[in-house]
């Protein structure tokens, strides 16, 4: 059977684009999850602090200044994000919701001779996204008949993991250096089902399954410099290097004109091109005003990536400001603001199949209770932003996108 090149594929690719967009919720930004106990409350402005287990992720040099001989910390977080696309199909908007509940950080520190040794596990990106929507009415198609019903069921899970050791050493009283070597693993599974009922009685159905796996490593080299009392400057440089990547997809389509299973089309595709990631340079400054007040600032630069297979990325600069205040020995309050800028270019109205661009801004807050060996922290963050997207494949239409997300986390740390 011959497939009409425009009709079903026009619909199908709309939602293939949706699939890509789902993953893009992560891939189009670099600062999707705040990592760590204190760090999360401070909006991630932690490169110049990094004096606990979270430092293994932000700036391993900072762990030199960790107090307590053995220290561990863990964070369990719940994330929720809603993306609303205006005027996508026949005036209807789309709403995609993503949630995730997971332990997103665990780290442990301990002295090792003249060094500080650490080991940590971090989930810098994770999403579990669902879309279950049905559209009714007279929906325009290119199948020779309008659709009276369109159903989409979509599930996407995309998780990135980092796990590995760190080592840091105090070079002198003003300088410490450190390094973390993470093993990187990413797995992404997407399932898309869509059914289109046309006004003339015909229907189309398609199912697509995509699985992506990436393995690699991420070295992070950091230093912590103290130019003057109470002022700390942190710098860390890291990058994910992928040493193996695979993408396998399976697409089954029942064309509107197909009448028997023999006429269904099945397509299998594989690709092993390795994805390229940018260099990540974190530079931070922290001022320890007193033993009760700390103010820190971070800026993170990601350079441009040229990757024709997985998508070019523009350079990005994110910033964060955080503060921590202990109003007693038992209680501390932290707050921060941060940005999570899109790594995609501005959309061009004359082109199609472009990645969405949504710059995000966030606010974080946490409160900690301390006892002698332990602390327990309850925190959360809000993220919001607006931008543009082009979810209809082959169309130059551009949609407005609004994003709103929130997270809650409960974490603990203790020293022995």
């Amino acid at each position: 059977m011959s497939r009409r090149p425009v009709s079903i594929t026009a619909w199908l690719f709309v939602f293939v684009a949706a699939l890509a967009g789902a993953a893009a919720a992560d891939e189009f930004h670099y600062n999707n999850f705040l990592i760590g106990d204190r760090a999360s409350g401070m909006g991630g402005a932690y490169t110049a602090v990094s004096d606990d287990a979270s430092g293994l992720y932000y700036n391993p040099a900072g762990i030199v200044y960790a107090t307590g001989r053995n220290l561990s910390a863990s964070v369990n977080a719940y994330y929720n994000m809603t993306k609303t696309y205006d005027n996508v199909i026949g005036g209807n908007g789309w709403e995609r919701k993503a949630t995730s509940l997971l332990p997103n950080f665990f780290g442990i520190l301990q002295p090792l001779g003249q060094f500080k040794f650490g080991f940590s596990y971090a989930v810098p990106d994770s999403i579990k996204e669902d879309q279950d929507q049905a559209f009714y009415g007279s929906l325009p198609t290119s199948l020779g008949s309008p659709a009276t019903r369109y159903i989409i069921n979509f599930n996407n899970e995309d998780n990135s993991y980092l796990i590995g050791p760190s080592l840091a050493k105090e070079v002198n009283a003003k300088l410490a250096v450190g390094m973390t070597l993470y093993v990187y693993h990413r797995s992404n599974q997407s399932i898309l089902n869509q059914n289109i009922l046309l006004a003339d009685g015909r229907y189309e159905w398609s199912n697509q399954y995509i699985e992506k796996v990436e393995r690699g490593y991420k070295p992070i080299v950091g230093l912590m410099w103290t130019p003057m009392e109470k002022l700390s400057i942190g710098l860390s440089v890291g990058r994910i290097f992928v040493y193996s990547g695979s993408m396998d997809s399976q697409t089954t389509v029942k064309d509107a004109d197909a009448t028997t299973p023999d006429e269904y089309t099945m397509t299998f595709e594989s690709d092993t091109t390795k994805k390229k990631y940018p260099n990540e340079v974190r530079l931070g400054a922290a001022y320890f005003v007193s033993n009760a007040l700390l103010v820190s600032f971070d800026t993170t630069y990601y350079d441009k990536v040229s990757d024709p297979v997985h998508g070019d990325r523009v350079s990005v600069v994110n910033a964060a400001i955080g503060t921590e205040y202990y109003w007693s020995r038992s209680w501390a309050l932290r707050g921060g603001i941060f940005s999570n800028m899109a790594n995609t270019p501005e959309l061009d109205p004359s082109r199609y199949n472009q990645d969405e661009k949504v710059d995000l801004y966030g606010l974080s807050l946490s409160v900690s209770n301390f006892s002698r060996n332990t602390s327990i922290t309850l925190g959360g963050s809000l993220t919001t932003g607006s931008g543009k997207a082009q979810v209809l494949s082959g169309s130059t239409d551009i949609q407005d996108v609004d994003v709103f997300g929130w997270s809650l986390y409960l974490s603990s740390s203790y020293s022995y």
Partner: protein
Amino acid sequence: MRRPGTLATVALVLLLPAAAAAAEAQAWRQRLPAESAEILSDDITEEVRFGREVAARILGRYGLYANTAMTRYVTLVGQSLARNGNRPELTFRFAVLNTSEINGYACPGGYIFVTRGAIEKMQDESELAGVIAHEMIHVNERHVVNELNIKATEASPVAGLARLIGGSTDAARAAFSQAVDKAVDTLFRTGYKREDESSADRGAVSLSAVSGYDPAGLVRYFERINAAKGSKTTEVLDKTHPAYDARTALLKETMARDGIDSSAFRTNRERFAEAVKQMK
């Protein structure tokens, strides 16, 4: 494409000269809760438990000198010092280690050891008291306890919740075992911090004096074993302690500063000689 290593190298080159300009402590990094130094009764229990583990390691290495009369004698001297110490909550225990090595050991919680070899080098009871007093100061001032941050595991609901969230309950046990290893390493290889040794020497002068023993006994003892320095019997002592010249100078300076007249205190030379006879 630029590599992270290249960027890091550039950063290091840029920042190192300025960083090397000066050096000073960074206590200001410590946050308010970390500065709490409150000692609870459970901490004492933990200190004793920890010290018992360390003592067991020492006994495992050297063995106990099974001479009841000698152990009783050392204990009597030790108890007379303990009565004048500042840790009434501890029950001090004293024993002689069966080794020709010259040394004394203190374990947190009040476990004090003197080696047979050290006693054989002594000539009177004030020297023995000086060595025991030195070791007791290590205990009294919690040198190992502070260095290794030995304290009780919390039993509060918040602490329990924190451990639950962290999913780790064996970590404390592992950390305890590592701390014992570290303490043993301190005693046999790396030694205490220099300021802790100096503090123990100064404290030994005072403790000996208030207990009625001649504080100069420790000076005489140091001068004598200094002559044996470099031998097999002082191998551990030499690598874990400061030079004797400096130590004796510090002792004399302390005595002079405190106006201690050595002749006014007892040495119990005869009683010591009688006790040592039992070692033959």
